[in-house]
């Protein structure tokens, strides 16, 4: 099945997502990559309610504001 590339906040709780890229080009994008959202990394969506998301990157749980989550493009695994 062909999985499309979507921003992180489109994923439901409990799914695993493989990071494709971080769009935008601002300094914050690099920061995101350096914190674990690099190409090929597999993350788990822990929480996706109204407000910031909680995402498990490796062993770390990160809180990510929606605006930032929107910049991270990923494919469901």
């Amino acid at each position, binding site marked *: 099945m062909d999985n499309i590339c979507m921003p992180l906040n489109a994923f439901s709780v409990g799914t695993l997502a493989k990071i494709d890229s971080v769009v935008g080009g601002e300094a*914050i994008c690099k920061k*995101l*990559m350096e914190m674990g959202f690099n190409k090929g990394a597999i993350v788990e969506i822990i929480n996706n309610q109204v*407000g910031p998301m909680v995402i498990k990157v490796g*062993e770390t*749980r*990160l*809180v*990510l504001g929606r605006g930032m989550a929107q910049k991270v493009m990923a494919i469901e695994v």
Partner: protein
Amino acid sequence: MSKDLVFALAGNPNCGKTSLFNDLTGAKQHVGNWPGVTVEKKEGKMTAEGRNITVVDLPGTYSLGAYSEDEVVARDFILKENPDVVVNVIDASNVERNLYLTTQILETGVKVVLALNMMDEAQNKNIKIEVEKLSKLLNIPVVPTTAVKGEGIKELVIAAINLGEKHEENRVHKYKIDYGTEVAKHVEKIENSFKNNNIKLEYPTSWTAIKLLENDEFIKKYIHEKENTANVEAELKKSNDLLLESIGYDVDAFIVDKRYEFIGSVVKQSVKRSSESNKRTLSDKIDSIVTNKWLGIPIFAVIMFVMYQITMTIGNGILTDLVGRFFDFLGGWVGNNLAYLGAPNLVQSFFVDALIGGVGSVLGFTPMIIIMYLLISILEDSGYMARAAYVMDRLMNAIGLHGKTAVSLIIGTGCNVAGVMSARTLESKKDRMVAILISPFMSCTARLAIYALFVSAFFSNTKIGPFNAGGIIVFGLYVLGILVAIIMGKFFSSTVFKGEDSYFIMELPPYRVPTVKGTLIHMWEKAGAFVKKAGTIILASIIVIWVLSNLPFGVAPGSKDSIVGMIGAAIAPLFILAGFGTWQAGIALITGFVAKEAVVGTMATIYGVEEGSKLITAIHGAFTPLSALSFMVFTLLYVPCVATIGAIKRETNSGKWAFITVVYTCVVAWITSVLVFQIGKIIGFN
């Protein structure tokens, strides 16, 4: 022979770096500020194996990029101050992510020892690390430690000392990560460009070249501001374009990927996890309740309320009482002795009222501060504060603020100074500035003393419906403060700091039981800083006020003819519209600028009575219920005490903002209290 060594501790936030620092330096630490920025600088001393060692705890960062002041501070220390060894503390249960910073540190060429910390947690999660292998792959000494239990510390120190005293050449070249031939080619081109244009760098050349390709904002600006760098910048642009073509995407992302590739291979060969470690941990289970959509905010409210109550009853109530009684006794004893020795009244008053009274009011305040910081330290060290920020974020976003801002504002209701200082934890400059600028509107405990006086004078016997009017008014004042803070917060975010970015990315560390030692040190640090900074200003100001109320010579203290009285009379007309245009109110407000808790005492002096029922009677003569109300509103909103202004100046690193705060809070206060008074008059309330 053995010389003095400098160790720098570097690592991600929440990896136990602070525990290690505490272990190494114990009580011999000093917390200050890195010059020019609002980043905390922690330095300590230790002796081991006959050497004197200075340990610098660098800010916790995820990388040595240029994203925040923290990272720049850490990076500059490593590159410019040349520590003998960098002890890189990493969380053994999270090696992959932690190694990113390690690769960056290695690339600077400094000597590194890896402290593989939190081994106990890794063991619990069944993560096995082959230390020898890891050490070989990274080419640096690796020492397993569990800082909270004190395990591995001795071995770590010995390894660091040995490395620090070893003489090594050309370290930068030992740690070149393979970025591929294309990138390597362009790194060389840029390095040549530096040489050909005779550019002298404060940083290693290959490191700088890589940073430029990595799009590092700080280094780009650094190069841009140097002379003769136009060629280098042209070369850089050319390289970027060529690399984009050959790689297929931006080279900065590519460099990050290459680092992760290297890390991935290192981890694969040296770290073994069993499938168990992917289970939902205890932290996750707790979080499902604490950060639950419906329970999150109520749980936060309950925790804050309990914290407040404990601080108030034990700190403000019991302990402050004790301190107060001690100083009353001391004042009486000294006063009697001075009188016996025939000292003139003025001298007696100086010792009793200014010195002892001044120190007494500062120290009287201190138990509450200590307890508050103790509770805050426990909440922070356990990991709950991060959840609090997350839970409040949704609400705060609606008013253009951050989740973490909520925590800092709540701390501000204990003491504005503490609230301002706690804004440090906010990452973006915009969030920090806004939090600092609106914190004076949070009603602090010192103001409570003023409300208590006026409420007992005018409102203790009235009722509004079934409730005591006094209680409602005080509650209303707190709410008013919060409302004004929110409005001003929104105002600042959308005007002055508009467009500056406010990003929310934060780690939720696993819940940990705070250690007694760690918490006490944490609390002591913060409370100590508070007492030193606030205490000295308050004491100095009380002495100044004392001087002003006793000059010119021979005048009745605090009377209309004293200097402070004359100042009070001079500003009194400003407040006619607000209902309290008397010189007495003027003096009270001036005193309030110094220290809000000094207001009640000053008023007692002005009216020549003791505090308590006599003062209440005296106030009846100068105020009406309505003017008392508008006076309280003014007190709530106008300039915070000198200690807070000092803190604002320090935390924003600028006198300009401190001055602006003074002015704008007075304006907001004046407008609001005039409104209260005039509207009150109109609706016939007096």
